[in-house]
């Protein structure tokens, strides 16, 4: 009897344990998905999505463009701590947000690289996908190491609960970046039909940037030349054409984040589509740089003029870098006139389409504005005597990212692709490498290509520079004129060791607070709080 009883208990508990096994048909696991070629494709696709957290986003603009010589805070700046270094602390949410996404991307790359041999690919596809993953790992690690220095580094998939982090030297990061890029350049195809995927020239262009960063000038120059000459890229005839919404995929673009017109493929948070998505999604550059025009006489908010978030204003230094009479890039880059689109608030006599607002980088006398119906904001109204921001609500506005094709005035998502590498940068890399190698004349040649393209018809001669004009500062000035707003400035100043010097010299707002430890970003507080090896994994110097 007793024996049967025990048997019964055993049978019952076996049946019970069967009952208690979890069944989750809605969920997918790494092992299920990443073990077939079709499944592995989803991993590689996903690896590309993480650059959407940086490029074309407010967080990305703040961390890579602000806090430099080119910009200062508009009234709506959410992160004046980054723009002006006022009490920049580890609690800054831009730092933790981007840190988290970058390491999630690294972990996905590591997972893929570790598992690709078991994905069932043919050799050819495996090589390509492996090269893509390695390229992307290098790309993401570069953001991490430049921003935060020698922080956590691994090439392995996270498989269990990890409560520690390591401090690895910057050299180790770069050694891996170069190893990965070498594989990428070897194995990537020349072209792709999937716009936005990495190709061999993309990897070469990025490696050129890396070589320049690490002082490998000769190699940087060779690589930049290769991208310029070998793959059919060409500069747009006019600088302004680069920013035309109907010309996004043009021959000057080496690599871009491919934002979609069909917004369901973009990254905005949505309870149904993407619960962990970005709060705005797609390209938000059109929101960030526009001054507050819509409450001024004769104006109302419309799609063409955009939705003014009023976040960033150019430094007076940036505006003064341009000779706008010869350089077409000034007019293409900046908007300084707004035309009446609202008769209800317009001064008497103003008609639709008349000039309603003018902002100018020059001082204007009362006599100049007397009798004018439009409102003028001049240099002295917008900027303080020292050049810092004064009226941070009305200023000359960067218009490269404006998107008049959005479906409505309040639409935050723009389908504008965010350029990550475009051909002009290769000319600037080549110029800087040549200058570093002592070939100023060669450097001037590269720069003149860009300057001639930028010249207003009839002013080509004024734009041409000679080897005597070339200096590191001149190259940085040229980069500002060519690439302002394109999320490279902070890297450029850091690479050249000029971050502190140029902020102090040219941008009084951040200059007031900048300290040399700001060459590294604060490690996010939640990371510091969460690690258990606190003695080993410490905050960057200068931050609390």
């Amino acid at each position, binding site marked *: 009897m007793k024996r049967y009883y025990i048997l019964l208990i055993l049978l019952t508990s076996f049946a019970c*344990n069967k*009952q208690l096994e*979890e069944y989750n*048909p*809605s969920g997918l*696991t790494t092992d299920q*998905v990443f073990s077939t070629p079709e499944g592995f494709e989803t991993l590689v*696709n996903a690896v*590309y*999505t*993480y650059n959407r957290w940086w490029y074309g986003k407010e967080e990305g603009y703040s961390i890579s463009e602000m806090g430099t010589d080119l910009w200062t805070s508009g009234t709506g*700046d*959410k992160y*004046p701590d980054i723009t002006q270094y*006022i*009490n920049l*602390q*580890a*609690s800054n949410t831009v730092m*933790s947000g981007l840190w988290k996404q970058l*390491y*999630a991307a690294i*972990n*996905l790359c590591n997972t893929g690289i570790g598992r690709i041999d078991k994905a069932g690919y043919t050799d050819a596809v495996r090589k390509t996908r492996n090269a893509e993953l390695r390229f992307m790992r290098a790309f993401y690690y570069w953001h991490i190491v430049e921003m935060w220095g020698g922080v*956590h580094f691994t090439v392995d998939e*996270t498989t269990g609960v*990890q*409560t520690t*982090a390591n401090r690895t030297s910057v050299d180790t990061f770069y050694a891996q970046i170069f190893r990965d890029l070498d594989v990428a350049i070897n194995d990537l195809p020349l072209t792709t*039909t*999937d716009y*936005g995927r990495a190709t061999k020239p993309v990897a070469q262009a990025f490696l050129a940037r890396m070589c320049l960063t690490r002082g490998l000038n000769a190699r940087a120059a060779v690589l930049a030349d290769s991208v310029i000459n070998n793959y059919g890229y060409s500069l747009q005839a006019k600088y302004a054409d680069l920013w035309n919404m109907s010309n996004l995929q043009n021959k000057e673009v080496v690599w871009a984040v491919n934002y*979609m*017109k069909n917004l*369901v*493929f973009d*990254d905005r948070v949505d309870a*149904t*589509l*993407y619960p962990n998505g970005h709060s705005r999604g797609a390209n938000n550059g059109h929101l960030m740089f526009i001054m507050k025009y*819509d409450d001024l*006489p004769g104006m109302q*908010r419309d799609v063409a003029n955009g939705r003014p978030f009023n976040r960033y204003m150019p430094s007076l230094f940036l505006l003064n870098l341009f000779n706008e009479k010869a350089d077409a890039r000034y007019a293409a880059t900046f908007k300084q006139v707004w035309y009446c689109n609202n008769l209800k*608030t317009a001064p008497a006599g103003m008609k639709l389409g008349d000039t309603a607002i003018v902002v100018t980088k020059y001082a204007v006398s009362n006599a100049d504005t007397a009798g004018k119906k439009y409102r003028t904001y001049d240099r002295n109204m917008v900027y303080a005597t020292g050049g810092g*921001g*004064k*009226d*941070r*609500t009305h200023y000359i506005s960067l218009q490269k990212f404006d998107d008049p094709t959005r*479906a409505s005035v*309040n*639409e*935050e998502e723009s389908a504008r692709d965010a350029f990550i590498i475009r051909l002009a940068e290769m000319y600037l890399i080549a110029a800087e490498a040549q200058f570093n190698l002592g070939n100023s004349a060669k450097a001037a040649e590269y720069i003149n290509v860009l300057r001639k393209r930028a010249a207003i018809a009839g002013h080509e001669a004024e734009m041409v520079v000679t080897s005597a004009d070339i200096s590191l500062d001149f190259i940085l000035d040229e980069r500002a004129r060519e690439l302002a707003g394109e999320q490279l400035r902070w890297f450029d100043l850091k690479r050249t060791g000029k971050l502190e010097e140029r902020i102090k010299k040219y941008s009084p707002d951040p200059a007031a607070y900048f300290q040399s430890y700001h060459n590294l970003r604060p490690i*996010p*507080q*939640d*990371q510091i*709080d*969460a690690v258990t090896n606190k003695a080993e994994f410490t905050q960057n110097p200068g931050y*609390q």
Partner: protein
Amino acid sequence: MFCWLLLCTVSWTFAQSHVVKGKITDATTGEPLVMVSVQLKGTTTGTQTDASGNFSINVPNPQGVLTFTYLGYEALSRNIEGNTSLSIVMTKDNKQLDEVVVIGYGEVKKRDLTGSVVSVKGAELRKVPTTNVMESVQGKLPGVDITKSSGASGAKINVTVRGNRSIRADNGPLYIVDGVQYQNIQDINPNDIQSMEVLKDASSTAIYGSRGANGVIIITTRKGATGKPKVSLNSYLGSNEVAGYPAMMTGPQYVALKREAYHTTGRWNSEADDALIFNAAEVNAIQNNLWTNYADLLIHNGLQQDYQVGVTGGSDKTKVYFSLDYFDEKGILKLDRTRRYSARLNIDQTISNTLKAGMQSQVTYYDQNARRDPLNQANKIVPLNGPYDADGNFVLFPNNGSAINPLADEQPNIYQNNARVTRTFINAYVELTPLKGLSLRSNLGVTLDNARQGIFAAKNSIDRSTASTSRSQYNTGAQRYLSWENVANYSHQFGQHTIGITGVASLLSDQRDSSFLQGEGQLLPSQLYYALANSVSGIAVRTNYLSSKLISFTGRVNYNYKGKYLLSLTGRSDGSSKLAPGNKWAFFPSAAAAWRISDESFMHGQKVFSDLKLRASYGIAGNDAVSPYSTASYLSKIPFSYDDTNAALAYGIGSQIGNRGLKWELSATTDVGLDFSVLNGRVGATVDYYDTRTKDLLLQRTLPSSSGVTTVIQNIGKTRNRGIEIGLNTTNISTSKLTWTSNITFSKNKEEIVALADAKTNDVANGWFIGYPVKVYYDYQKLGIWQTDEATEAAKFGYKPGDIKVRDLNGDGALNTQDRMVLGRQVPTWSGGFNNDIRFANFDLNIYVFARIGQYIYSEYAAKFDPQGLENSAPLDYWTPDHATNAYPRPNASVSKDGTPFIKTLGYQDGSFVKIRNISLGYTLPAGALKTVHLSNVRVYVTGKNLITFSKVKDYDPERGGDLSNPLTKMYVAGLNVEF
């Protein structure tokens, strides 16, 4: 005339002359009873016994009837029958102690309870008309913290029993309705409830194992009765109005702030500069003093009504109760309305001497319209405009501004959010009693839940004001909750020993699936969410499945000797599907003992205690309250494509990593309690002290994000909750005409985290601090505002006069994250209730006062300060160079709200409150008058709910917790109870 009066007086005097004397003694002890009320039936003539138990009363007629009433004793009537001397013996009334209390899988007499159980009868619940029965017991159950979550129609009630134990898990109690778990307590109509029991200590809840860790609330619905059918009608109708809503700045106040903000930057110096900082329409509004208080336009009076009819009836073998109910609540915002329809049918059938079967069933249908909160919009929009133009047309963007009109969603065809929920709850049982003392019962409970929610937001709605097109959503959910339990009960008495044994085997299974559909840009708004096929963009679908199971085996032994020494032992083994293989099963033992001291012979001589019982229990309860599938790592889908037509599937690694070692969270509770009554039962009290230590908490732990994942559910840490609960019942006045009873409850709970990942390290990332409760506010401590004469000191920290001044906690001369501290707790230090029932003749009056003291709230209003004047602010006392204050910082047009240092510190406030929760006056029609119309009971009443709140927070009911959306309401209700 005079003679006639005189005659009367004489006859009166004459009539008084019959005197009855007597002595009253206790039936068991023979001792005289003092202050016993003696009354001549049907008159106001009465007296009381003296110190030796003697009384003397003059009666007009020697044939009358005397009634004797004495608290704690059974009332008695005696015919005088011409006697002049009576010897009266009164027996103790054990009714209260013999009351049957429902416990897990059984019932016991109150006197035999070993655990901490509070019982509330249905009549008590019906006193205050409420939607959710938990609302009616707020503050009446010691140790149970009940708050209303918001003022929206059909809003949820938050219930916590004895503090928060688990950090992550839901701390709500387990609801058992007629023996079966039913988490939708809001469905149950208070009129359908027979009794409600709250089980608090580990020994009482032990039989529920893991599910009982946060306390158990057992609800028994009404049953049919043999005899003449009885019908009851209950109805009320009431008006809701907002219980205080603080106003934002008026137009002139707003203008002053914005001028000051630009004065700070030098752009505004006099009214001549207005045109520089205000647009033309605003300048015009300033000149004409035109401005709008949008909150006033949004908030209206709501309406609540409920109609219920219940019928009990039955024959010898069949007993039936059924009821129908309709409830309708219109919230204080337009488009906010909840309607509930429910029907209940309870049948108990005796099949043979040994076999019984029955079924309790309820169908509930909700039709609920919700409003997207418009008050946030109303509180921030610049007030210098009107919602309508001169011709009375609606203006979508007042003043051509960027802020949408807060009234937008109220316009025709703009917004609808409608949820329809059908919930069927069926609980069937069969019970076999093959031998005396043995019963075998099988219970099958099924809850089927079908919900659909349709949301339409037009292009011109608040929700879509940052997008380009309308959006329609159609979401559905289906839940099947199944509970199958087999219970065996055996009780036996031999000699002075009584033993009861209970065994339970149960299977609980929860299975849900859901779908989410959405699309954008349909042509006609009138199609709402019924034509998703007409969407032109943004089409998205998602479906989801979720299931979990719990299997349990339980045994309990109750033993008592002579009814004086009581012992209860419980063991339960639970297996949960949600935990890791190998850790799915756990065993939870508990023991409880009680000693009825007052039944001891040595107590017979004393007069202080009429009842005295000491209880003690210890037990371990488990908790598996994590989401299913927490043990595995999953991928998460990322929308992606390489072109505009075809999606490219992309899966990233989910941000939560699975934990292959997940196990039970365990709480060990010691409870010592004392039940006593003194002054002949006039004062009864229950006092409990408890100490709960929880370990292996199921925590969502923040991981270093450098690992690529950010969270894991882990068993970490320890918490401790200890406290004291007092429940006091007093009879202040007890005469046949007037009774006044009071009920006082007091609960004090100390909740603290004892350890997290280790015993020393706080988890700042999650806001958990050792030595503090789970929910706290952690931030800089605001000291005031930097004043002009402190400029040098301020500059050392990088600030200037007019900025917020906070404490440099570590005194290192710099202000950074190290200077944050725990500012306040979100849980109360104590709470209490004071309930009074006064009955005078046919009138009944209930006054109920409730206090919740010591908790902090984050006041959205106090933090409503925009230094730029881009949005409206609360009318606050801000600093200017000419107006020194320590309240709010200096307006400054060049610093955004988010960029203002320490702006969050403005919102923390002490949210303690004392409120008059309920005043209710009822009148029961005299029985005689009712007989003629064949009614047995008619009561009419008026009630004021949530009438007055005393707190430090002005114009706002802090029970809401600080949020400005959906403010709480007060209610004026008139109701009717009829029985026949």
